């Protein structure tokens, strides 16, 4: 393994292989367009958010929805598409940044994972919360993959609900120009996602590699915390600097980790990057092509309709493309997290039954 990344690949000796068994989501009904959001700013900003980010709209929680309710809804949807029941889960990891149990109450303890596992009947599962910014769900998958490969457990769930658009509402009160450190808060959307990872039947390719590293000298480039004189939270992001670091360092990291899995970017059929903005994803695609001379066959973009749903973006996108029947069995799919920290995480897997159980035919 590259010593700069904590990683696992099929080349390592491990008794089992893990695979994604089911993906579920919960999206609030209410939609807010970028135009509507910018019309709510206190100051006249002249920012064309849709043109700047490619985000047309995002979902916003109603008064009775919370991080917890979105997570529970996604977990139930995931189980409804699965062949297993809640009681079959041996581990439940909650990975959200936001921890709202109602409109304005953030809960430190008990952990959200405890409430989620009880709601879905996974009472005997080992449960805990992971917090790793927008890389939270992929971090959970990384951990589950390890436990399954070692044979410690057969099956677990990673789940997250993000009621995060309050940051955008708070930012809309303060923002005056495109240079505001709260600009990225306007791109956020609410949503929940859940994924079941299980031991793959013998001979199935499943998850080929997974790895993470933290480029911590950039740890303070994006800070989110409760607002001082307002309900909810605020987030301050040096988005240009994060973008620059991602573009400068990302390609070499991706090339190196893919080599660990015995593949290259040109062999990747679908790349699902963290969904920050259409513009950032397309810029990333261009830089990868320039620096590596190769590109994935397809780049997945859902941020235009959902906004940046924080820790859930990768799995909302995976679910969307699955239900649209875009994937085919045998496709190589690369999940890529670049998150505050600066966290860089990848999971490469080969599409199998997931395409049948979640796709068109289903």
């Amino acid at each position, binding site marked *: 393994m590259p010593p700069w990344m904590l990683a696992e690949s099929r080349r390592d000796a491990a008794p089992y292989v893990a695979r994604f068994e089911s993906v579920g989501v919960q999206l609030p009904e209410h939609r807010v367009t970028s135009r509507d959001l910018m019309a709510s700013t206190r100051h006249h900003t002249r920012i064309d958010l849709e043109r700047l980010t490619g985000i047309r709209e995002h979902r916003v929680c109603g008064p009775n929805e919370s991080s917890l309710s979105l997570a529970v809804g996604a977990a139930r949807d995931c189980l409804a598409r699965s062949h297993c029941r809640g009681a079959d889960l041996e581990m439940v990891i909650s990975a959200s940044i936001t921890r709202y149990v109602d409109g304005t109450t953030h809960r430190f303890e008990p952990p959200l994972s405890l409430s989620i596992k009880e709601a879905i009947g996974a009472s005997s599962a080992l449960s805990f919360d992971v917090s790793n910014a927008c890389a939270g769900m992929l971090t959970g998958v990384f951990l589950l993959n390890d436990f399954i490969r070692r044979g410690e457990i057969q099956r677990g769930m990673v789940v997250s609900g993000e009621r995060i658009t309050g940051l955008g509402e708070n930012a809309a009160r303060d923002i005056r120009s495109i240079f505001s450190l709260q600009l990225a808060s306007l791109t956020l959307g609410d949503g929940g996602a859940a994924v079941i990872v299980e031991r793959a039947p013998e001979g199935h390719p499943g998850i080929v590699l997974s790895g993470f590293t933290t480029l*911590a000298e950039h740890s303070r480039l994006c800070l989110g915390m409760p607002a001082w004189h307002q309900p909810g939270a605020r987030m301050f992001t040096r988005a240009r600097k994060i973008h620059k670091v991602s573009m400068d360092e990302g390609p070499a*990291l991706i090339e190196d980790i893919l080599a660990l899995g015995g593949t290259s970017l040109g062999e990747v059929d679908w790349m699902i990057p963290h969904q920050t903005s259409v513009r950032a994803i397309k810029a990333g695609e261009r830089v990868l092509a320039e620096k590596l001379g190769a590109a994935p066959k397809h780049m997945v973009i859902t941020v235009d309709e959902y906004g940046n749903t924080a820790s859930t973006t990768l799995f909302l996108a995976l679910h969307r493309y699955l239900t649209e029947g875009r994937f085919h069995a045998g496709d190589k799919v690369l999940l890529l997290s670049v998150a505050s920290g600066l966290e860089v995480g990848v999971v490469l897997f080969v599409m199998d039954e997931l395409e049948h159980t979640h796709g068109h035919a289903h």
Partner: protein
Amino acid sequence: MGTRIEAAVTAHRRGHVFGRGALHLTDSAARACLRRAHHQPSELDLLIHAGLYKDRNTAEPALAAIIQEDIGANPGSPPQIGHHGTFSFDVQNGGCGVLTAAQLVDAFVGRGHAHLGMVVAGDADPSPRTSVGFPFAPAAGALLLGRAGNGVGFQAFSTRTFPEHAALFEATLTWHPDAGLAHLGRNVVEVREAPELAGACIEHAVEVAGELLVSCGLHASDVDLVIGSQYPHGFADHVARRLAIPDGRVPVVRSELERAHTAGPIAALEAAIDARQFARATHTLFVTAGAGITIAAALYAQRARA
């Protein structure tokens, strides 16, 4: 291959309102822990933070990433090919967070995917002027875990939850429109604890730890040392007594750390190391309690069992 404890160090705050926050304490504990074990920060493969009450209640990024930068654990970018890197993230599992994080480190170190991992945990009241019922001492701890052979290290982990007691302890951050000096409103940390909490934690900890000992083929008298949560107060003493573990096997933690929250087990371990109880112990039982109620227990072997 196993995972052995290389060092455990705590840091606590003198003074209350104007003292240093959770991050400063956790950074201090992490640095001191590495020094004590004669390791460089750059050797860390994995850094997990398990604290809950952070300065300004920072929700993003993971505090572990900030600590990684502060202590100089491969913060540079890019991690050059052939150079070393560190992966950092936070785990939250109430008073059981340190043991949950240790289980995760054990998974990677024990299999050889990582050489050295550190669990850090720190809590301090983020807003002492406005918080309600915050019971924990401002304290942090760091636990360094490395590879071991010959059956030394963590042998087994067991975690169970008892949601029927979920209402006995709850900590939230809630918007209060009239709070603050000028009554302009504040997000207020509120901790609510029922009097029955301690009894329920002890009751279920006895159950979980007892089952773990049986599954490991051990009797209570085989346990040489009990490392437990410091909150609820007296938890480890009561659990040891109820399990009929002989007297004198629960380390005495200094008074400043008696109400440490997530760092509580590290405080107990540090006390045991300083008193040479840990070095003499063949079997160490870890038992922790958290809101939920969650009970996490682990068995650690200091020397190879015959």
